């Protein structure tokens, strides 16, 4: 089996023993069965068990292993090792804009707080019918590109508006979720949802920078969803 050595520069910080964070140079042997960045990280951890990072499904649906990889946010499990240029170290940092707990693990409290703030659940006050609430295939298609979000936070933590106002700007992930419920024909709370976002910070801190679209590992487009929310607000106001 052919093996090769990968060079890494990894952000390290253990508040239990480190005065301040530092970048560690470290290398690891990988073989031809190691296709993804996560495979290499698992190999690294076998050598140094103190490297801390989150991971779970290793197939891009759980959203655990979002990192800043060579300056761009992405999932380690969906990043091909072959995509890295030879001879240059791979630079790994925690997601930007959130407090670091340790090494590559960030505190996502603020991110989830924003997600929760948009009431991420279906609101329908009619008595539930015996059977399913009907929805045409066309109406269901409106939810495509919205419901698939895995809450990995790649988008929100690449958004300068979120870096500046993480406590007040909902961020692309939360706004995508907000539109997912606005767009659902079964949801009856559209007006309240728009009210909830009608604020100079919550929605309108989005300046269509589109970093979110650039990094989304699921290929979703939060900017488009945000645009649709704004359009609905205009329609409502005039």
């Amino acid at each position, binding site marked *: 089996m052919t093996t090769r050595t990968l060079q890494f520069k990894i952000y390290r910080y253990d508040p239990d023993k480190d005065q301040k964070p530092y970048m560690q140079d470290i290398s690891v042997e990988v073989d031809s069965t190691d296709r993804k960045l996560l495979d290499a990280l698992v190999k690294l951890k076998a050598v140094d*068990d103190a490297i801390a990072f989150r991971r779970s499904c*290793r197939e891009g649906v759980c959203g655990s292993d979002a990192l800043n990889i060579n300056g761009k946010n992405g999932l380690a499990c969906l990043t091909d090792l072959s995509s890295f240029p030879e001879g240059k170290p791979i630079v790994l940092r925690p997601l930007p804009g959130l407090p670091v707990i*340790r090494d590559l693990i960030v505190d996502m409290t603020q991110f989830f707080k924003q997600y929760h703030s948009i009431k991420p659940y279906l609101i329908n006050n009619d008595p539930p019918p015996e059977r399913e609430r009907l929805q045409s295939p066309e109406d269901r298609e409106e939810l495509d590109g919205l419901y698939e979000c895995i809450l990995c936070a790649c988008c929100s933590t690449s958004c300068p508006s979120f870096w500046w106002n993480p406590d007040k700007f909902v961020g692309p992930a939360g706004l995508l979720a907000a539109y997912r419920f606005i767009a659902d024909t079964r949801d009856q709370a559209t007006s309240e949802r728009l009210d909830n976002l009608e604020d100079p910070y919550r929605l309108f801190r989005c300046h269509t920078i589109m970093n979110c679209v650039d990094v989304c590992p699921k290929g979703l487009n939060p900017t488009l969803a945000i645009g649709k929310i704004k359009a609905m607000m205009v329609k409502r106001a005039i």
Partner: protein
Amino acid sequence: MAYTVRKFDAVIVGAGGAGLRAAIQLSESGYKTAVITKVFPTRSHTVAAQGGVAASLGNSEEDHWHWHMYDTVKGSDWLGDQDAIEFMCRKANECVIELEHYGMPFDRTDAGKIYQRPFGGHMSNFGEKPVRRSCAAADRTGHAMLHAMYQRNVKANTQFFVEWMALDLVRDSEGEVLGVTAMDMETGEIVVFQAKATIFATGGSGRIYYSSTNAFINTGDGLGMAARAGIPLEDMEFWQFHPTGVAGAGVLITEGVRGEGGILRNAQGERFMERYAPNAKDLASRDVVSRAMVTEINEGRGCGPNKDFVLLDITHLDPATIMKRLPGIREIAIQFAGVDCIKEPIPVVPTCHYQMGGIPTNYSGQVVVPGKRSQNEIVPGFYAAGECACASVHGANRLGTNSLLDLLVFGKSAGETAVETLKQSPKAHKDLPQGEIDRALARVNRLNTQTGGTNVHETRLDMQRTMQKHAGVFRFADLLQQGVDKIKQVEEQVRQTEIKDKSMVFNTARIEALELDNLIEVAVSTMVSAEARKESRGAHVRSDCADSAEFPDGRNDKDWLKHSLWYKEGNRLDYKSVKLTPLTVETIALKKRAY
């Protein structure tokens, strides 16, 4: 070691499908409930389920819960308890409709109803022909379901303890369960969660195998905790190998691909399933398809330079159908197999996928163990649901889409039973037994102080390779016997694992070592139960128990129509009878399984 005690009415361990469903029940009933989870709820492995959830809604063609029940009993190779199976199949519609009301984005038929697709082993009219029973949201059903249930819990204001790892059960001398000890992963703080109802929904443990579709977190924590507290593990020899894991990567390719018309082909391009299951073909039960694939590979008809995989072909399907019904599969094929399945077939191999066995429960979600009065005495205060539990609805082999149904029905039922029991339970909590708490703390203490021990990564690999080699798709008497000795050696190694990282802050090395403590209980129980079961049934197929006139397909109903129960203490086995009497209908009589 310091710890604090927190009191709740109920504590749920695990926030996958079953845990979240139980939490909805408890939170909406107003009970103070804590949900402890190693990962943020939407990262639980339910998120990776793809193909659908079974329910005889009959949205596209006639269907009936009784047919579903027949298929499930047949799929289980008659090892499933027929009372629990009837309960599950009858509750299916209600539970799926509830999910739809929670907001789950199911695909739709032209009439606006929930879209249903065919799935392996699901037939109409008692096994006649495939039926559309799998309710699907594209090929992301688990994701859509888990998020919908998490969202419902946000609405119900459920209290989550995210990134906490449960360490051990607290069970007093009378056998009553009084809660769990758990560790905050971020700080290393230990808390005893004292509760009148403890519900385990900790999921599977497929990581005992080297090649698995399971997530890193699927480490059988609930099973390990139960086994250490003296609860037996039921039917652990039965592991489902999913026919279509991506060769090399192990990532799951849903059976829904075959439901939408996908075909398995060998190196000659032959649709070989026609020979093994002339009626259901590629949609035969999973154990049947997996064995057919391994047989093809073993007989030299595998594909690739090493002839070690077969091909899953959907190139004949309309690309629009693939993009609409199987978009996630196309992503996976491109990401992990390096092929665009619109143009090229996907290389697949059977991969460890699901644990049919688990913590023994009845259909109300209560944990039951053999006692003086009966084989199924209720353990007070203890419930289990989902993959970690064994109700037993899957018996010796689970049908696709029945896992999501299992976690819905039994998550809800465990929650309901807990609510009913809480209504009658006294206000005060029972006193905590100090010795039991010390047991959990001792495990953490050992890790903090161990020197000259074994490496967690290496030891885990040893376990995984041993399981893969000695308890795989096909099983052999001599390999199983050697396997029992080998896995016991590995167990010794696990008792001495050493971690270099001693930090209190988000110490993932310590978490992995604690997980390995749980994995090894599962691995040992699997190997020992498998070695002892001298027959072929469902997913457990032994070369020394082949098809014969006396024992068709090697199944021996005379001696082995019974559930295995493995006890950690003394590494001993016990058995209990299968419940062949359903709740209201007639017994589905034993017969040879053919698809």
